[in-house]
């Protein structure tokens, strides 16, 4: 069944033990789209990625990727699916004991029987796509944060996957790297025909490049829409998020007893 939806999440709930993280989430990502999943820290964004990657199974609901239900796959089926998915971890997660070249070549060497010449060409092509062909011989420890993440991106697309997931790709980058990263995500999605799922809380950068946005808060989707719709949204939570307001649906104060009582101002007058 050839559907246009690469990723379909229907009524998914998940919790760690007694603590519920997702309480019923519906999400769709179509082929060729860049979809952003936004929300404040700890709202379950990364959990969604792990559900799609099959690292955890939902307590309720279905997660489907390219028509297959991820939770029902056996080990071999899951590994086959993962070969068609790429994931970019928050700080790159490069293998620190091998060089940049070997990092990108890792999946090629593990999953294909290609000769070393072919692998060499492919690796250099991928590195060129992210602009780091000259850094092939460096070790991960010698890279800056932004460069490390670009290498991780090259590694993620090494096998030409159909879906790439980005976990906070903009976190902690300088303005130039921010621009470069955003640019890369959009360009690769368009030229390689991928689908990209970007989990982030960097609103400004992501709104420049995404096709569709989902807002997650307290385990449910509170808002969704195209980039333009989100920017114009008047929903309080979305508005607070997009404009970076200090107080709103997400309160400034951590729950505490009344201020006067805490300072015991009343007691002094007794």
């Amino acid at each position, binding site marked *: 069944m050839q559907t246009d939806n690469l990723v379909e999440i229907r009524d998914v709930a998940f919790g760690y033990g007694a603590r519920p993280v997702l309480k019923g989430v519906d999400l769709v990502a179509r082929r060729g789209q860049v979809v952003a999943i936004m929300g404040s820290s700890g709202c379950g964004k990364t959990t969604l990625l792990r559900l799609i990657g099959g690292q955890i199974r939902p307590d309720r609901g279905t997660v489907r990727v390219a028509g297959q239900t991820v939770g029902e796959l056996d080990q071999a089926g*899951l*590994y086959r699916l*993962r*070969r068609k998915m790429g994931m970019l971890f*928050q700080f790159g997660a490069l293998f620190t004991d091998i060089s940049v070249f070997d990092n990108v070549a890792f*999946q090629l060497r593990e999953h294909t029987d290609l000769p070393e010449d072919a692998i060499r060409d492919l690796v250099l092509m991928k590195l060129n796509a992210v602009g780091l062909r000259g850094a092939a011989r460096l070790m991960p420890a010698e890279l800056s944060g932004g460069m490390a993440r670009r290498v*991780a991106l090259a590694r993620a697309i090494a096998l030409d996957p159909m879906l790439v997931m980005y976990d906070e790709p903009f976190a902690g980058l300088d303005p130039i790297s921010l621009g470069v990263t955003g640019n890369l995500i959009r360009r690769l999605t368009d030229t390689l025909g991928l689908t990209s799922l970007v989990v982030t809380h960097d609103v400004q950068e992501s709104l420049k490049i995404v096709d569709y946005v989902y807002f997650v808060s307290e385990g449910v989707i509170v808002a969704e829409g195209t980039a333009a719709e989100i920017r114009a949204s008047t929903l309080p939570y979305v508005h607070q998020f997009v404009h970076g307001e200090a107080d709103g649906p997400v309160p400034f104060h951590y729950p505490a007893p009344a201020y006067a009582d805490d300072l015991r101002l009343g007691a002094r007058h007794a």
Partner: protein
Amino acid sequence: MLRRAIENLGNRTVQGVWRMGFAARFFFAVLLHSGTAFRRFGLTIREMYFTGVLSLIIVLVSGLFVGMVLGLQGYETLQTYGSEEALGVLVALSLVRELGPVVAALLFASRAGSAITAEIGLMKATEQLSAMEMMAVDPIARVVAPRFWAGVISMPLLAAMFSAMGVLGGYLVGVQLIGVDEGSFWSQMQSAVDFEQDILNGVIKSVVFGVVISTIALFEGYDAPPTAEGVSGATTRTVVTSSLAVLALDFVLTAFMFRGLN
């Protein structure tokens, strides 16, 4: 107050047993996924460099000094019975049966074991193991199993080298320094040390120690909380738990092996 202390103790014991079950399952998983470690032996050889070769210096030097001390102390005691010529026997049997496997295992646990735990713990904390999983490569087969087998293979080699250096040290002190007769040093040793009983048993012991230390080191690293304190706590636990396990197992194995010598 007492009740809470007992509750605490019970809780800790249950946690400990639960954790041991976890570790046992981990051990069997490592064995099951060892195919890659042998099919791509280069991976295992690489790990043998980091666990075995880099432990060489400490093992050889310690072996030499332990042997030299055995020579000195042994001579003092044997002299009171007029049996100085049995020095070779004393040094060789102590080393081959006990000190070689046990001390080499303790050194291995503190040097290589803690390094393995730190490395795996760090790989987990920086999401490298997760990344590998997402790239459809089983981290247990690719990262854990080669380190396990490298430890199991390196351990008996290190123990043998420790014993050999110890005998050399005993020889240097006893014969060259103190003046025990060289001929009787070696001949009495050769007639007292039996290949099957003593040397082979020593090798078996060191293989068992290798299995235990590698399993504990890998498990602690794999299970460590992904924070700085988590990894450092895991490293300490590896050294302490492996050392205790080695000493306890040594007693059990010795009781089995050297009980019925008739």
